[in-house]
């Protein structure tokens, strides 16, 4: 493993070093450098500090572990691999991701999972341990979004979740009383099969962050899927 101190490195020098390295890398004192691990497939990264926007964009198989908070657009358009954040993340995590998994111990900002998609065996997953901001799963087209609402007294999700959702699945660890969903989705309490389906994600979340899967699963869950009989129309006009 190579150790790389990122203080005062600009993002292109840092990313060039990462690309050229022949083995896994631990980056320390990271502060705002963007695009870290972009398109990476052949080595894993550990990051201490605050990585900048678009962490792991187009990620293609590597694992990125962050000890700190991550900023906006984590895993933008990622294709494969894992991003594990031991903290909170900013807005637009998993933007248009089409494969791989993102695990977040803390809270997510606005628009987590915006336009996630799926194709055949490519099923991306975004697991958020805390709560999510407004517009969760906006225009979601595929994949799985799970929000657990642990360690958080806030509402599990902000306003306007699932706006424009037309594919994939969202599972929230809450009865979702008081959450207003749009007309274009079907909202129902989770069945046994739903929980079985997400068990592997929950298990992995617990392995990364030290929670107990059975404890987490021993709660009310709500499943949201698109309602194809009542497709999404519009939100931004006429309000």
């Amino acid at each position, binding site marked *: 493993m190579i150790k790389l101190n990122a203080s005062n490195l600009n993002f292109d020098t840092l990313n060039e070093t990462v690309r050229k390295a022949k083995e896994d890398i631990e980056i320390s004192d990271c*502060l*705002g450098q963007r695009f870290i691990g972009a398109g990476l497939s052949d080595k894993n990264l550990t990051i201490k500090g605050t990585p900048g*926007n678009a962490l792991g964009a187009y990620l293609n198989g590597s694992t990125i572990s962050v000890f700190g908070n991550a*900023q*906006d657009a984590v895993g933008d358009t990622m294709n494969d691999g894992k991003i594990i954040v031991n903290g909170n993340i900013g*807005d637009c995590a998993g933007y248009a991701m089409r494969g791989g998994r993102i695990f977040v111990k803390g809270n997510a900002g606005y628009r987590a999972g915006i336009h996630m998609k799926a194709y055949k065996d490519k099923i991306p997953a975004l697991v958020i341990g805390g709560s999510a901001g407004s*517009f969760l799963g906006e225009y979601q087209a595929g994949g799985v979004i799970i929000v657990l609402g642990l360690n958080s007294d806030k509402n599990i999700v902000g*306003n306007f979740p699932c706006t424009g959702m037309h594919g994939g699945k969202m599972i929230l660890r809450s009865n979702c009383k008081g959450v207003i969903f749009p007309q274009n989705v079907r909202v129902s309490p989770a069945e046994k099969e739903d929980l079985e389906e997400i068990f592997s994600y929950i298990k992995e979340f617990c392995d990364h962050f030290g929670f107990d899967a059975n404890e987490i699963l021993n709660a009310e869950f709500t499943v949201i899927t698109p309602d194809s009989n009542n497709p999404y129309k519009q939100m931004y006009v006429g309000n």
Partner: protein
Amino acid sequence: MKKEGEIRIPSGCAISAVISKDGNKMTGEKIIESMIPMHDRSNGLGGGFAGYGIYPDHKNEYALHIFFNDKYRIEDCERIIKDSFEIVKKEIIPTRKIPEITDEPIIMRYFVSPLFSLLRSLQLDEKEFVVRIVMKINTEVDGAYVFSSGKNMGAFKAVGFPEDVGRFYKLDEYEGYSWTAHGRYPTNTPGWWGGAHPFGLLDYTIVHNGEISSYDANRRFIEMFGYKCTLQTDTEVITYIADYLIRRQGLSLTETASVIAAPFWTTIENKPEKEREKLKYLRTMFSSLLITGPFSIILGFDGGLMALNDRLKLRSMVVGEYNDKVFIASEEAAIRKMEINAKNIYAPQGGEPIIVKVKEGKF
């Protein structure tokens, strides 16, 4: 090159701020440093800062910061100033010659007091009087532009990257209880010294990341009240809206936020009755001042700051704290550059104002 206001090109930016709730003084160094991790959010076509509490020796006079294209404009402008104010002090704003900042205009500052007899005969409130003179200079004197006009505060801005602009103006030699900063990536206008942020009127300053789509609707409304939008840039109109709502209409900061980033009607409908009625009233009364499109802004004012996102939160903004200080920035990295151990890092909701004030009597 055509100047700002003469051309419109069909924005990314960076904002940052720090304030001491105890009114402790900080030099401009930290706020300059905060812009370094966000360097790539700007493109070198504008950077600027506002400092509050920086002129304690002249705290009772309005500090006019003025750009002049050439020395011949000074005379025209000073004629207007002398007709309206007593000039207590006049000086060139000290700058450092650095290769990164070029083509600077003449940059002057005047500490002025309105002529009492004139105020009385015009029956004008002092602040309103100052606003009228600032508007007069900015619209009537070609080649002169007042870019800062508050008491015991000042804006400093230029074409360049913000870190360089801060060094250019020697902000390490000023001390203030609150600072805001901006790095510019202009998309609608070509980038001129006057068009850099912060925009200021009296003690209100705005730094803004975003691009508002309601510019013309807002401009048409605000120009009915004597404000002149001369630069075609959206941040200018936000500054005047803040002045209009807070100073002239007497709205609180929270109410102002509910006007410019009004919640959706569906959100309003689900509020408790009292709050619902108030929000309805504000949205109806000031419907032309709803600002749509992406923005994150920091409003600086005498003794405080307010940070606000558009209601859809189409721009990022993070808040953090450490001891007596509160930090606000487009990116967490900027906050950690100012204070690595910053706590309670929090991203406010769209339309949720974050208001921080210095304790009473501490500034």
